[in-house]
């Protein structure tokens, strides 16, 4: 590239991918400096749907802020609300009944499966295969139906409350969840036959868009992106929260760091999440789903608190600085997609446009999670 750049006739052009582009799946703009079909520089331009969630956190009471986190990463909204309530519970010292913790884990993992299924469809759509999207949507639909019965909403859940849950699950939930686990587990070989074993797909993913472990650490990438680069980091294992230590599950890690590795990590994660759901259903204790003495107005003692959860896209953390009043002094949201998108510029350098789209899809970015 440098030899070419010294040539006075060497010419590049700027290609704006987005803010309205089918591959960015939302209002993200990537400014690409192109040399023909090769990318010389890539720069994600953020801020098109900034909604001031952090500032809203400072102005609202803790209860008023409850619906906000699910608007960040709307595809794994359950994990985001989990992160929020866990931070506030840690700050205010609210104990959560065991049944509520188990139901939290079950619903979060179901939500993770639905998120990964949607990613699977959208990712293959980025690669030009339309049909898997509808198969994945079909399975995801069953999860959303089940979660809708429990939480009342299909996408932006507000199910977790400080000290427990909004309501208990109904009688059909356990059977429905078991049927769902079986259904998706039976479908996984079909996905592998249709997608993973496809020779065109393998050619497009293997060795393409490598991200080194070094790069992941530099940009703070977490979740499947980091695990696809050989970093075995999972918040559920390394900084356990809720009742995750009582579950037996593996953290899939692949060393290659290419798009295929990230793809395989997520496919394996679907199966691990199903395992967690199954164990949760087996162990689900009886009892209340809401702590008895939760203050109406929460005023955490003065201090600095942080709690992270493993959302579908990586570590989602909330830093809460309390000054002892009923609103936070500062509410910093650490969203996984922001870190993951930051490495796109470096990782996409020198790639073909088509491979950059594959890389972009394999990062699994949700734009509202980046812009907040």
């Amino acid at each position, binding site marked *: 590239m440098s030899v070419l750049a010294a040539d006075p006739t060497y010419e590049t*052009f700027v*290609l704006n991918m987005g803010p309205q*582009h*089918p*591959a960015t799946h939302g209002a993200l703009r990537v400014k690409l400096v192109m040399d023909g*079909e090769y990318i010389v520089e890539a720069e994600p331009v953020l801020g098109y749907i900034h909604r001031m969630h952090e500032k809203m956190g400072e102005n609202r009471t803790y209860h008023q802020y409850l619906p906000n986190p699910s608007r960040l990463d709307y595809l794994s909204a359950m994990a985001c609300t989990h992160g929020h309530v866990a931070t506030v519970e840690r700050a205010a010292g609210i104990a959560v009944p065991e049944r509520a913790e188990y139901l939290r884990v079950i619903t979060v993992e179901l939500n993770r499966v639905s998120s990964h299924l949607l990613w699977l469809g959208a990712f*293959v*759509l*980025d*690669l*030009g*295969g*339309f*049909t898997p999207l*509808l*198969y994945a949507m*079909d399975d995801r639909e069953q999860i959303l139906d089940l979660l809708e019965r429990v939480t009342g909403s299909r996408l932006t859940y507000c199910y977790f409350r400080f000290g427990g849950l909004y309501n208990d699950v109904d009688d059909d939930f356990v059977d429905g969840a078991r049927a769902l686990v079986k259904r998706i587990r039976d479908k996984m070989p079909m996905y592998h036959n*249709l997608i993973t074993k*496809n020779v*065109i*797909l393998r*050619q*497009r993913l293997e060795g393409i868009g490598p991200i080194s472990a070094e790069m992941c650490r530099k940009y703070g990438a977490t979740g499947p992106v980091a695990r696809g680069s050989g970093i075995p980091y999972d918040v559920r294992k390394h900084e356990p929260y809720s009742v995750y230590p009582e579950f037996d599950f593996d953290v899939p890690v692949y060393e290659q760091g290419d798009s295929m590795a990230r793809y395989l990590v997520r496919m394996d994660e679907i199966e691990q999440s199903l395992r967690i759901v199954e164990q949760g259903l087996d162990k689900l204790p009886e009892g209340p789903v809401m702590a008895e003495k939760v203050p109406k107005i929460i005023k955490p003692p003065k201090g600095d608190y942080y709690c992270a959860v493993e959302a579908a896209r990586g570590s989602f953390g909330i830093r809460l600085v309390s000054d002892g009043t009923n609103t936070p002094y500062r509410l910093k949201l650490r969203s996984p997609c922001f870190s993951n998108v930051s490495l796109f510029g470096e990782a996409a350098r020198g790639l*073909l*446009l*088509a*491979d950059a*789209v594959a890389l972009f899809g394999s990062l699994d970015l949700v734009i509202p999670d980046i812009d907040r």
Partner: protein
Amino acid sequence: MSELPEIFRVLAFVGGIMALVGLNAAFSVWLERKVAGHIQRRIGPKEVGPFGIFQSLADGIKLMSKQLVVPAKADPVLYRLAPALTMITAVMVFVVIPFGPALVARDINIGLLLIFAIASVNVLALLMGGWGSNNKYAVISATRAVSQNVAYEVPMLITVVTMVMIAGSMNLNTIVGQQQNLLQWYIFPWNGSLLLPVSFLIFFVCAMAETNRAPFDLGEAESELVAGFHTEYGGMGFGLFFLGEYGHVFVGCALASILFLGGWQCPFGWLPGIHWLLLKTYLLVFVVMWVRWTYPRTTLYGLLNLSWKVLVPFSLAILVLTAAMLKVF
């Protein structure tokens, strides 16, 4: 039909071919949506007419009633000419396609050559459309389409040369006439060359790539290039590109069935005629759609590698082997 004065014959064929191209596009769009629907576990169009058969008509009316917007700084001549040119080439190749023993607009000796000569012009239309619409995505797409078409024309033509050597004619009606029943179809290895099934495969893959169909639809890779060379086209400008594309798909599949599957001849010798050609062609069109809704898209380099490193050497080897076999036996 030969008793009619020439002018009526020409008019009848012009009308017939135009109607066929239009109806073919309408039918193909409907078929594509139905096939896609059933592959994806849904039902596809069903509201407009029985089985949604008039859906394409409704789409056509919508496209025709839209305003043709020419983008600022677009090349006004090229921008308007490109959709027309792609349509013209799609219609013109029908001139030599034999639909029945006497149902061919111009039964000329070099029919096969003429089809490729005209179909190649289609690339120019894509280039004009991509360049003329003053859009970076369209330009990238146009360059892709050109390199792709050039790469795939080579193995396709080599395969066609093989077929011409076996059949001994470039007249499509003569080639069809030689394949009177199932056993005489040129797809089978005992009819001239042992490698004929491979030739068919090469021809079919090339026809798919030549018509920009998935998994080779790099020209209009919607997830990378928005809509490729017709990004800036709306209304009937887009509609003509669409008509042209389905026309070319039809011609590619018709040519495959004429060269390898006996064209308008019946596999069992009953009632030869246009219905057999349409049946075989639409079966192949169905396969094209089946592939499209199953596979993801290749990349440009994967595509070019497939052509230059696999298809070209293979088709050349088949050409040489066939020539040797014809000489020996």
